[in-house]
């Protein structure tokens, strides 16, 4: 039942895309992008040390709110996911769950060197080294740890990327997750084991958004289908 509905919806969106005859459509698009870049809700997942520089960036002295960015407590209402610092394997599972729960368009910012290449913990057995192997990252803010000014600068870059997204395609890393889902899933399976699955059906969402690409399907998604089964409530314990 559900799959049929999804197909109908995706056809509709395709048709709508072809029928853009309104001459003001581009103006509206620009206006929407402008508004989107000016009001962003941020979910900060305090995965590591970088979280300590967020309170100064959010409160009176550096005041993130003047950029139109405010913290948000739930993933479903947030636009930006801030991953602040090293991600241990146990945390990374939660980060991926959080990321998949967020509604598109969604953006990821990796703060601290640890999300770029492992940073200070490059030889640690417990941390995942590169964040962009597991989810697409829009902006990296390097440093150990980056100062609040650097955090604000990173957020400003993200805002510009969102505003100019249609021309430069810089703020659309989230589309990459659907287009190359097989790659990301493969890396996740390597780390968490072959039975790894999340409650979110990414392939169905890709169909819904019309973002299926060649990279959406592959060997790893085949493996996922082999092990995938409805998650029982008891099993959803992490």
């Amino acid at each position, binding site marked *: 039942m*559900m799959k049929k509905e999804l197909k109908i919806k995706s056809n509709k969106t395709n048709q709508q895309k072809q029928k853009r005859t309104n001459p003001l459509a581009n103006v509206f698009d620009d206006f929407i992008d402008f508004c989107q870049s000016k009001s962003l809700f941020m*979910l900060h*997942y*305090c*995965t*590591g*040390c970088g*979280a*300590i*520089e967020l*309170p*100064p960036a959010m*409160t*009176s*002295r550096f005041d993130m709110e003047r950029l139109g960015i405010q913290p948000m*407590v739930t*993933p479903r209402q947030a636009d930006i996911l801030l991953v602040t610092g*090293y991600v*241990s394997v*146990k*945390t990374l599972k*939660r980060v991926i769950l*959080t990321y998949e*729960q967020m509604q598109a368009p969604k953006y990821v910012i990796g703060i601290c060197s640890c999300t770029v290449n492992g940073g*200070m*913990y490059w*030889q*640690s*057995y*417990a*941390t995942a080294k590169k964040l962009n192997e597991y989810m697409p990252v829009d902006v990296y803010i390097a440093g*150990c*740890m980056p*100062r609040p000014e650097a955090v604000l600068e990173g957020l400003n870059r993200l805002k510009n990327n969102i505003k100019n997204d249609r021309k430069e395609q810089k703020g659309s890393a989230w589309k990459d997750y659907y287009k190359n889902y097989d790659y990301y899933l493969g890396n996740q399976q390597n780390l968490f084991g072959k039975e790894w699955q999340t*409650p*979110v*059906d990414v392939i*169905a969402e890709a169909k819904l958004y019309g973002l299926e690409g060649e990279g959406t399907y592959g060997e790893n998604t085949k493996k996922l289908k082999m092990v995938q089964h*409805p*998650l*029982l*409530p008891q099993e959803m314990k992490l």
Partner: protein
Amino acid sequence: MRPENYQAVPLGDSNEYEIFIGPNHPGIEGNYALKLILDGDTVVKGTTDAGYLHRGFEKLMEGRLWIQNLAIVPRICVPDPAPMEVSYSLAVEEIMGIDAPIRAQWIRVLQLELSRIAAHLFTFGGHAATTGMYTPMYWGVADRDLVLDLFEDFTGGRVYSIYNIPGGVRRELPEGFLEKLSHLLDYLESRQNDYDNLLFTNQIFVQRAKGVGVLSKEDALEYGVTGPNLRACGLAFDVRRDDPYLIYDQLEFDIPTQQKGDAWSRILVRRDELFQSIHILRQVIAKLPSIKGPIRTAIPNPLSWNVPAGEAYARVESSKGELAYYVVSDGGDKPYRVHVRGPSSMHAVQTLEFLAKGARIEDVAQIMFSLDACPPEVDR
């Protein structure tokens, strides 16, 4: 979310249900989680779920040179990094059989007490925010930033300074630093009334914090509680006075205590400690210019530096409690074994589970923040 995943949860015989708090939750300090079994809004059982921040510190340190370890040591406890450096340096100095010069010891005390002020200001805000008061958070973070500016001035780093080195400190204080520090202390003291009115005697806060998470003296000792949490139970134990390190035996300061052992007592102890730290810093400002001399005892070339075989246990009083490093050397260029005795693993695991039992769900976050646990140090 796939709709077919939703299934009705069969109800058991009891009315108990379980919920997760964290790891990504505004009521949780850092990356930490709790699983609560609730009956109505009363916690029947709380189980902590640590390990989200595990990096394998003690193993990492075995693979790095003695001097390289200084870089990762402060990252164990993010809000209060200075005691980590000092404690590690003290342990290595003890094995080597050297002492830091007197002037370096005074500068270390200056750094430790500044770090304590910064950590306590941060805690006030966090604790108040769990009771729904957000203004103290804004004030505390803003005032802490002034302290961080001073840190930047004399160590070069806002949060992680890496200023200590076995044998002393790395740099001399910049010119005019003590005057700046003096101005900051004046400012912090002038804020005392504001903070009292806003937070410590504010009925909105007092009514929420009084009688919450009561820890008796016996239980506190049994669970290994140290630091301000222990002093809030009425036991005046402070490593600075009872096992003096550096030059703390030459300084005058009180050990503030409270009797009740609840969340309010704990925050009051921290408040008094902040002003005691200011008192200590004033003595340092008065004494430091008259102490001349080197700031570092020479150590061999750090890249081929073999610390003689031996072991040492060096403890300091951090803002969270007693912090200690147990370092074993086998005569090589890397530590043979390092163990960190952090205060937070005692506070955030057993003590939190003990205090959460029987508490109401809205108080769980407050209990956690009032214990001032530091999750990165629990997991290490």
